């Protein structure tokens, strides 16, 4: 029975996440003044908002996957590629890049006076659907490249060799080897990218260009912040969470729930590549390099072209504050994510559906807007504790909650593998919890470093939580950048953004496995 006494203990590990959501909803419910008005569901503005949210997320997702595939294939089939390790670092950086840094880069390149946007009339406007898609593809295609590359890498060398011996055509090889290898990953990958784009905030906020391109996430923000209509914000969040949550659940039900790992190591296929194919692969690889690098280079040039005007001490203090919060949040999130996988693993072999729901609960913070959790927490705690004094612990806890789904997604495939390999052994041995922990620890410890770095960089980009709970005399780096930019100091803001980018790059570089480039 799934709910026997022994089975209760694993569920307890989900308590922090569930409790956090409950606190948020409780806070919002008790602070709201308007009653729930279901009328706005029939408001044409709500309908167009919902349609646009779905449309842009679906398009972003399809584009990111379609563009990622040739890049992943080039990486797989070319035995020698110049700067492969740097490219992998770049893909990781692009995925976690603070969106305002990317947006600044895109503006410099493609804005009204952009370097790449010349001619009269200007061929391109960055604002509206096209800008949103461009930014979403930039942020998510690299993730897809890594996952698809990893999937193709899992094909045994023998399969590749056989395909060569049997002289399979390109199409046959695709349908018999490549597609079966990536198929189990596509569902979840697509769902994951869809949800990220569906919940995307800063990109739509900046590049949407007006009420034409409003998404649900943006509508929630407006309801929360500018109408202070907590009831409406709650209802909109429910709609958003139901849609995004169903997409994730459906992906879990449909596939083998194959989760992916983001760290990638290269294994050659041993296939000979024709000259024409090699040229094609190299071209794709070069284009991907340029695409991912250009916005970063643009920000660098812009930031350095005005000479340094930054004041060192506030900048360093802000960096220290950012690191303090982000490191603590990552330190909380990694063990928490590990623990929260326990119920899903516990029921994996025996109760697949329960396992899926347990996993969903571990992931559910991915579908709730950060701002909703933040405002809910504020409303809940404000009458109970001194929020100003508890600022750092609150920031750490909330940032950790936001990171947990990423940790869960990263650790799950490893731990599932571990379970498969050790279930029988452990069934006989029945080690105590401490031993079990220690064995698992030695197994996952090589993954923990990259995972920690990834979580850390994601937490560095936080703005909405700091806006609620932060102390203005102890700004984080991102907050400091907003402050500089908000006070006409745009060049300094660009320089501080560059600093953030460098810090993220260093952490990401540190995360990539060293031996990945040996060949």
């Amino acid at each position, binding site marked *: 029975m799934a709910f026997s006494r022994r089975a209760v203990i694993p569920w307890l590990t989900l308590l922090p996440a569930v409790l956090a959501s409950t606190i948020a909803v409780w806070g919002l419910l008790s*602070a709201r003044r308007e009653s729930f008005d279901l009328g706005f569901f029939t408001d044409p*503005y709500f309908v*167009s908002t919902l349609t646009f949210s779905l449309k842009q997320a679906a398009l972003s997702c399809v584009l990111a996957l379609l563009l990622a595939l040739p890049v992943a294939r080039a990486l797989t089939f070319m035995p020698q590629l110049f700067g492969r390790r740097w490219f992998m670092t770049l893909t990781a950086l692009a995925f976690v890049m603070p969106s305002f840094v990317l947006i600044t880069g895109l*503006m*410099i390149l493609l*804005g*009204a*006076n952009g370097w790449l946007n010349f001619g009269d009339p200007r061929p391109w*406007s960055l*604002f509206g659907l096209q800008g949103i898609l461009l930014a979403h593809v930039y942020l998510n295609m690299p993730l897809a490249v890594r996952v698809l590359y990893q999937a193709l890498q899992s094909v045994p060398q023998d399969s590749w060799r056989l395909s060569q011996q049997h002289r399979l055509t390109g199409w046959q090889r695709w349908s018999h080897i490549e597609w079966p290898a990536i198929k189990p990953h596509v569902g979840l990958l697509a769902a994951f990218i869809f949800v990220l784009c569906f919940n995307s905030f800063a990109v739509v*906020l*900046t590049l949407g*260009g*007006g*009420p*034409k391109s409003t998404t649900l996430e943006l509508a929630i923000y*407006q309801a*929360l*912040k*500018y*109408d*202070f209509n907590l009831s409406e914000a709650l209802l909109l969040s429910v709609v958003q969470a139901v849609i995004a949550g169903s997409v994730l659940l459906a992906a879990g039900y449909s596939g083998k729930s194959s989760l992916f790992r983001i760290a990638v190591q290269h294994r050659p296929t041993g296939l000979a590549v024709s000259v024409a194919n090699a040229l094609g692969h190299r071209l794709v690889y070069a284009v991907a390099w340029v695409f991912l690098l250009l916005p970063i280079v643009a920000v660098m040039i812009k930031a350095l072209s005005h000479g340094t005007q930054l004041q060192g001490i*506030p900048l*360093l*203090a802000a960096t*220290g*504050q950012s*690191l*303090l919060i982000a490191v603590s949040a990552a330190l909380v999130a990694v063990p928490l994510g590990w623990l929260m996988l326990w119920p899903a693993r516990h029921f994996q072999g025996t109760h697949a559906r329960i396992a899926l729901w347990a996993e969903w609960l571990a992931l559910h913070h991915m579908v709730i807007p950060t701002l909703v959790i933040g*405002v809910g927490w*504020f*409303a809940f705690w*404000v*009458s109970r504790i001194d929020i*100003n*004094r508890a600022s*750092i612990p609150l920031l750490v806890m909330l940032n950790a909650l936001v990171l947990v789904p990423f940790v869960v997604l990263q650790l799950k495939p490893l731990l599932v593998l571990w379970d498969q390999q050790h279930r029988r052994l452990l069934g006989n041995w029945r080690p105590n919890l401490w031993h079990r922990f220690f064995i698992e620890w030695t197994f996952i410890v090589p993954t923990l470093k990259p995972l920690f770095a990834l979580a850390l960089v994601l937490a560095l980009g936080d703005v909405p939580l700091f*806006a609620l709970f932060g*102390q*203005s*005399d*102890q700004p984080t780096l991102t907050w400091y950048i*907003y*402050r500089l*930019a*908000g*006070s*006409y*100091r*745009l060049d300094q*803001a660009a320089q501080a953004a560059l600093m953030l980018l460098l810090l993220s790059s260093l952490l990401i570089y540190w995360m990539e496995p060293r031996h990945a480039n040996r060949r």
Partner: protein
Amino acid sequence: MISLRQLAWLSALIVPVSVAQTLTVYTYDSFVSEWGPGPQLETLFEAQCDCDLNFVGSADGVAMLNRLRLEGKKTQADVLLGLDNLILEQAKREQLVQPHGVDTSAVSAHLEWTDAEFVPFDYGYFAWVYDTTRITTPATSFESLIASDARIIYQDPRTSTPGFGLMVWINQLYPDSANHIWKGLAPLTETVSQGWWEGYSLFLNGGADYVLSYTTSPAYHILAESDQRYAAAPFSAGHIAQIEVAAISAQSQQPALASQFLSFLISPEAQAVIPTTNWMLPVIDGVALDPAFDGAAPERTLTVDPLQVLNEKTNWIRAWRSAVAQ
């Protein structure tokens, strides 16, 4: 690595600091930044009040208002600083403030200030700012702006104070045909940004010919960057003002000290700090102003009825949304 400041902060967690009188002032973030007026005003006021002035910064005026709403009776705020004439009626309706009892007769006559709960501390006029090296004959009205082929950027009236100001401005000038103006502006619009700075930085990077900002914006470029390029386009039909205001929180336990702070805010010494830190105009006469601010006072100004703004804003936003979203 933990910095000294953080250590100090951590120790503050453990050791409760007790100061005889602390005046807590809620404001927006840029007011308390190291280049904003906050630090100087703090030094000046603490020298005369025998108290500890404690600024608590929120992202912007609206975020500050939300914080108050969430905190309700538990708020520690004594003073709210940084709402403006366009949203003060909202704060009154929600009973977040109490009468200030401050003598505001020193406030310049043209501001016609009589409010019993709010004290003004600076003001500026909404205007279209342009680059004089690119626009030689600036627009003088919304009609001439629409007739030009210029590219413009303005802010979302739902999320930004200048954007909200533009909406009030247009509805003030064209009570019956605001829709027509929005539709005329739509094809010129490069983007509607969420906040002031997103739009303004785009403009500075060459993203548009005009950006909605303040008549005082050019003074910043002249004084802080020695850059004479930018100017505010004077509209012959007149401009509306954003008057930034402060008030005593309804929950304050020390209204006398709060009131003393509000009086200080409109004193000559405090008013002298504001123009070159907050980049707005002083609310009292006789403050020495740099000539860079000469263009900041428009020839013709329009008065706004805050109650009308409160009652009409939902309709105005809806009208804007449907005019622009087509």
